[in-house]
């Protein structure tokens, strides 16, 4: 009896083992890392932001791994340079998908690269795009955390027209898609608020620009405010020239992409009456942000890369990946897209909730005080204004 029983037990055990095989295999896969490909500016004109992008993503990965990773798998960050031409980034994307079997992409780069990546990835791998952009990205399996014109422009223009009683506005920007689309929205809100555009000009992106002539033209047009969609060194150059000609005392300025590095370049003496609305400043108050800043400083020390919206966005990108994949219980496109609706995830300044694959988020209106951003108004849960249909 004893013997038979053992045999029967052995039989049962063997059967259980066979039945359990898929579970065992799944466990073996669970030991594989969850690979996130991070497209960031390791080189090129935006390389200034690279160290912050990398550091912020690494901090999020470290925190997530300490708490059990994504679906029990440790997260591995694969760094990819998106600072070169879009074609280079797409080659990297293919390599990461085919060779590395990357599970998900997070990208903090310009829109030209985003469009190229969307066309290459073709929704096979989820892609989370994070910085600031012109709106309109509704490609399947693509999730956009970036500030949209709706989120940035309305608070800025309301400040100008309602509080500062601005009527005439001059627009100056770099000549590419983001400034032009953002300015379309500026005009729309300005008209609604009773103001009007009395001048609009664009300077080439990436050319050695000087702004003496444009500033003189603005002086002649006598607007009440200037809305600036210049980026990087051009933004610095323009604002320095503007203040050099003494216009900083005569009219207001609202910039649409003015972060900590740019303001340091503009300099304390050139930032009078300069306003800006974005979802992140290093001076945003709140417990979540304090905790983020403490962890960032603890990990990277006193010489940590400068905190700025382009960089800290990668922290939210990695946390969004975790929330999305865990809610969908996998990386199937249809499941992820369904899971994204109403998804809540952490950012450097606290949790946000996603709708139409774009999060509603708090926006902060800041006034420059020297080389610091003083937050003068907070808008909670500002919608993206994007209406991506569910697939």
């Amino acid at each position, binding site marked *: 009896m004893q013997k038979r029983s053992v045999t029967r037990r052995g039989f049962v055990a063997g059967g259980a083992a066979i039945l359990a095989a898929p579970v065992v295999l799944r466990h073996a896969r669970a030991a594989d890392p969850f690979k996130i490909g991070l497209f960031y500016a390791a080189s090129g004109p935006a390389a200034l932001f690279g160290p912050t992008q990398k550091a912020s993503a690494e901090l999020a990965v470290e925190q997530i791994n300490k708490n059990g990773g994504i679906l029990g798998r440790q997260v591995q960050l694969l760094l990819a340079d998106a600072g070169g031409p879009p074609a280079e980034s797409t080659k990297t994307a293919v390599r990461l998908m085919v060779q590395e079997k990357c599970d998900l992409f997070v990208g903090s780069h310009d829109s030209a690269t985003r469009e190229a990546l969307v066309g290459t990835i073709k929704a096979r791998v989820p892609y989370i795009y994070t910085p600031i952009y012109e709106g309109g990205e509704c490609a399947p399996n693509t999730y956009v955390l970036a500030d949209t014109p709706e989120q940035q422009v309305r608070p800025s223009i309301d400040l100008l027209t309602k509080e500062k009683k601005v009527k005439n506005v001059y627009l100056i920007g770099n000549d590419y898609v983001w400034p032009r689309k953002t300015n379309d929205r500026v005009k729309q809100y300005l008209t609604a608020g009773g103001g009007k555009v009395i001048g609009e000009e664009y300077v080439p992106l990436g050319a050695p620009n000087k702004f003496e002539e444009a500033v003189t033209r603005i002086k002649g047009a006598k607007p009440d405010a200037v809305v600036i969609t210049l980026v990087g060194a051009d933004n610095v150059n323009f604002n320095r020239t503007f203040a*050099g000609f003494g216009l900083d005392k005569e009219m207001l300025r609202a910039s649409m992409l003015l972060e900590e590095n740019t303001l340091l*370049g503009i300099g304390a003496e050139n930032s009078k009456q300069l306003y800006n609305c974005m979802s992140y400043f290093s001076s945003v108050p709140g417990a979540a942000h304090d905790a983020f800043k403490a962890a960032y400083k603890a990990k990277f020390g006193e010489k940590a890369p400068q905190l700025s919206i382009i960089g800290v966005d990668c922290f939210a990108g990695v946390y969004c990946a975790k929330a999305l994949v865990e809610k969908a219980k996998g990386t199937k496109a249809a499941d992820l897209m369904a899971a994204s609706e109403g998804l809540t995830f952490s950012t450097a300044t606290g949790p946000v909730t996603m709708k139409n694959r774009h999060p509603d988020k708090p926006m902060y209106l800041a006034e420059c005080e020297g080389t610091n951003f003083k937050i003068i108004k907070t808008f909670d849960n500002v919608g993206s204004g994007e209406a991506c249909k569910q697939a």
Partner: protein
Amino acid sequence: MDPLVTTQFLNIAFGIATLAVLALGLAIVFGLLGVLNIAHGELVMAGAYAAWIVQSAGLPYALAVPLAMLACGLLGWLIEAGLIRPLYARPFDTLLATWGLSLLLRKTAEAIWGLGYKSVALPLPGTVDVLGAAYPRYRLMLIVLCLAGVAALAAWFAKSGAGTRIKAMVANPDLAQAVGIRTGRLARNAFVAGCALAGLGGVMVAPLTPVHPFMGIDYILESFFVLVVGGLGSVAGLVAGAGIIGGLGSLVSAVADRTAGYTAVLVIAILFLWLRPRGLLARA
């Protein structure tokens, strides 16, 4: 005259005067030695960092002028001895060598100061009234100093013994050496002077633009166009080149916009390379 028109004329003068000084170092090195120093812009960058260091240390801004010229002159001396001298008769090789050098200088600056923008405050803030137009004091001072500097250089080149020796060396190096002119030393001095002038250019532009490792690229291209249009080897050519490139850029930008201004400069540069490759006032 309408104050705005006056301001735009001053902007044109500013564009020409600063470009003449920024291109001066390149013109000396290219025109006299036949070396196209691609790292010229990076020496302008080094000069701008020198200005930032002087200002951050709380020292008077004027001190940045000798310091930047000294630092860039020293750099020039090292570059000449280590890189240029073995390559004098090989123009294409010097081009490649100085291009490599420009990458090295940029990356060195990045390693020391990082990629972030440094802000240099205007040493002479505020505006001053010129014929009814409020014009920034510092820019006005630059117009005056740059024009005076170029005029002084032209006079020195025309009248001095050193100027004559340089002309002799350029016209016929072997014969110059035969009559006792130490051409090796003269060439080195010319190179060092060109580099020091790039440093001066850096001090000049530092309060106007963000100072960062990649700023040099903005200056090398326009400076090169000045030489293409003006021709090599004469101060008059330099002034003509700066007048056309800087003046046209500023004028078209004032009348139309910056895109048109930039296009006009590129078109003119291409036309000159095509139809008049020796420039307006090339040395005979």
